[in-house]
């Protein structure tokens, strides 16, 4: 168990992402995750195969989905002898799952594995108010008819009602968008810069589709063959005409066009050791070099909710002896256009890098032509836990096309003030 070997990204699959209440409105997380696995299994000829493990998760989960990933495996063509477990780290779920699988492979505890994620904003669990839930449990515990009657009469019409889970931070009561608006203001991120980033996302994603880039990364689902949110023909004028939805007053900059929409979807990434890959006729696309997570204190207002990756990346760079410019490609998850822009501004800022990161000099800037080159969440959509898998498979393929040694950086922010980042290197 002292072996340390490299884990490779061997391929990926996802279903096209659908808008909330769109074509996947009736699909459950388990349905979608199973579909993503089935496409991955078919692409890599894994039917009947026992893998080391499958690790995946969902951010919004029904209580019945306590063993979501294992159930999806049992519903797939993989060998039923393939173990599985669920993880949940908000929007970092998919990437964190990959870190876990890659680490086990590196340690020699597994030879192969799948990391994935799924989320449905449509088929969301509905929760009854806390007061009603307690009363219902009391009713359920009641043994005699008299006890039952007594418990039942305590339920008042005012107790009734349902709560649909909201994208709200429990400790601040603020939505993610409201949090982001504060950070955008802090970093002086303009409306124009956000719209430009959103436009680039749509244009890059559309171009990638037209070039057939996703032919071996995606399997259609329920009649959808492309991400439903993609607006190939959007323009800076159209984006500029949208009204702001987060932030207050004339200074507000965030719109539905430069924020990710609620979406449904699933993704899965195949990882393995070099030997396992060879035995299965598969070529490593990229090595999973390293991963790092960070969290920030957004509750006190000390740092922005989605700024944790700004801290995770320099720690990982230092460990690897790399600079921010040592990468051929960057994938920064577009939770909001402002997230990407704030993060990059922070890395360019001397004071932030000195005071917050304890660095002598700023990390510097990123060549925008190397950022999210086949589009990101603004265009594709962002079914929370599915984003990590989407990005990993995309980046691994892009790096492989660039040639051996090409390096890529992944950065994903997550609710709870967290962030997961990783480095891939073309095999």
């Amino acid at each position, binding site marked *: 168990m002292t072996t340390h070997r490299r884990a490779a990204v061997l391929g990926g699959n996802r279903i096209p992402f659908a808008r909330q209440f769109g074509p996947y409105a009736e699909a459950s997380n388990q349905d979608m995750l199973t*579909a993503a696995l*089935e*496409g991955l*299994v*078919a*692409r*890599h*000829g894994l*039917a*009947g195969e026992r893998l080391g493990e499958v690790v995946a998760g969902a951010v919004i989960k029904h209580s019945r989905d306590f063993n979501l990933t294992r159930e999806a495996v049992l519903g797939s*063509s993989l060998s039923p002898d393939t173990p599985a477990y669920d993880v949940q780290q908000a929007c970092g779920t998919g990437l964190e799952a990959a870190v876990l699988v890659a680490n086990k492979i590196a340690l020699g505890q597994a030879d192969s594995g799948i990391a994935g994620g799924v989320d449905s904003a449509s088929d969301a669990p509905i929760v009854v108010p806390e007061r009603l839930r307690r009363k219902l449990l009391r009713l359920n515990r009641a043994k005699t008819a008299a006890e039952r009657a007594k418990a039942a009469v305590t339920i008042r019409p005012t107790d009734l009602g349902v709560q649909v889970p909201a994208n709200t931070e429990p400790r601040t009561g603020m939505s993610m968008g409201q949090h982001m608006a504060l950070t955008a203001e802090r970093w002086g991120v303009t409306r124009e810069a956000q719209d430009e980033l959103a436009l680039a996302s749509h244009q890059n994603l559309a171009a990638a589709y037209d070039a*057939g880039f*996703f*032919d*071996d990364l*995606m*399997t*259609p*689902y329920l009649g959808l*063959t492309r991400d439903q949110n993609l607006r190939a023909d959007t323009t800076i004028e159209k984006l500029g005409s949208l009204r702001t939805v987060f932030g207050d007053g004339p200074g507000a900059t965030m719109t539905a066009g430069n924020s990710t929409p609620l979406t449904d979807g699933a993704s899965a990434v195949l990882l393995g050791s070099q030997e396992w890959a060879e035995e299965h*006729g*598969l*070529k490593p696309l990229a090595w999973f070099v390293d991963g790092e997570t960070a969290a920030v204190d957004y509750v006190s207002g000390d740092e922005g909710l989605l700024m944790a990756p700004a801290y995770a990346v320099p720690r990982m760079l230092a460990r690897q002896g790399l600079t921010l410019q040592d990468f051929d490609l960057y994938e920064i998850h577009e939770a909001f256009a402002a997230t990407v822009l704030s993060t990059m501004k922070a890395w360019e800022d001397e004071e932030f890098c000195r005071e917050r990161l304890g660095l002598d000099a700023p990390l510097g800037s990123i060549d925008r032509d190397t950022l999210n080159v086949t589009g990101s969440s603004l265009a594709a959509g962002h079914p929370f836990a599915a984003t990590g898998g989407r990005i990993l498979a995309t980046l691994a393929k892009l790096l492989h096309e660039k040639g051996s040694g090409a390096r890529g950086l992944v950065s994903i922010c997550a609710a709870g003030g967290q962030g997961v980042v990783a480095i891939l290197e073309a095999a």
Partner: protein
Amino acid sequence: MARADGYTTFVSSGFGKKLATTLGLPQPVPLRRYVPGGPLVDGPVLVGGHADTPAVTALRAGLTAAGATLTEVVPDGARLGGVVVDLTAAETPADLESLRATLAPALKRLGRCARVVVVGRRPGTSGSVAQQAARRALEGVTRSVGKELRAGATANLVLVTEGSEGAALGTVLFLLSGRSAYVDGQVFRVGEGGAVDAPADAEHPLAGKVAVVTGAARGIGADIARTIARDGATVVCVDIPAAGASLADVANEVGGTALQVDVTATDAGARIAEHARTRHGGLDLVVHNAGITRDKLLANTDEDRWDSVLQVNLLSILRMNEALLAKDGLRDGGRMVLVSSIAGIAGNRGQSSYAASKAGVIGLVDGYAADRALRRRGITVNAVAPGFIETEMTAKIPFATREVGRRLNSLSQGGLPVDVAETIAYFAADAQAAVTGNVVRVCGQSLLGA
């Protein structure tokens, strides 16, 4: 895999059968289809023919080894599973009497879905005119017998090369078996080759082979994938990216791989060859099955419509084959099977583009089969030409037209995708090394273009 149509089920029931007899309606029977582990034929096989019957002599041991009970006399009381009549020694039309004498009494004693296999010689250029006439006469007899047979029985002709009679074993076994359920009134040409050995594993004649099937997401292609996987092949399932969901289901069902590629893409052949090589170590069988129709009278056919059919059904095959028939494509001894159509033989109103493409496919077979370099590499190229096959495609035809299409053949029913697939699997087996350049119709002896 699809079931027999409702009408066939109905007229096979007690009441339905009576009604159909009274009204003189066609009486299709459920066909005998191959089931792994089942018997080769249901009942003894009568063997006979003219003079010293050299083909029967060459095939006897192989037929027996495959489980056939051979007999020289029509048995009392029992039903025959099949008849093999050897006319390879016929020198003049007068010798055809041997055929009549063998077949006539046997035809009255055939069991359900029995098989008549006539074996003759390929009409050569060196023999006498009388010999040519005798050889050609066999086609007329076989086709007529096919039309006389009832209850799912079929008649086919196998033409062999002198000295290579043993090379026809695989073909004769195919025709006797349930694999050829919907193959009727066809002529198979077997070239020069040694006697074939039975495969090491009779139930998996394609064991160890790597195959590519285009258009595998549904319909006939999906059943081709299932059938050759059942026979032991590892299958690369190819279809357009938009069909990826059902393609994945088929690939996972057969334990193969899914490759989302449009066959008209310029690099389709290279990508398929590379996938087969890197994933599975090589390529032994290519089945060009992907196809589309864009039906319209020629007068109303614009350039786009015309072009799309020709691109998918014909030009893509030519382009892909540059990579698939190159040195690092199909392995020596490899097989290629193309999917034509009876529309490509008979033509069809409103299908000029489709018929052009499917007739062109037959031209491809002729061209490749004559290619000496491919022959030297032991690569065979054949085609199937399906008739009316029950698929999603034909389910969309209006009812009346569909009923006519279904019944206008000697078996009075449509074929199933698996029938086409079985014929492809037959071409694909090692045993068919001497079978190239054939276009076999899987049409139940359709009247169209016959």
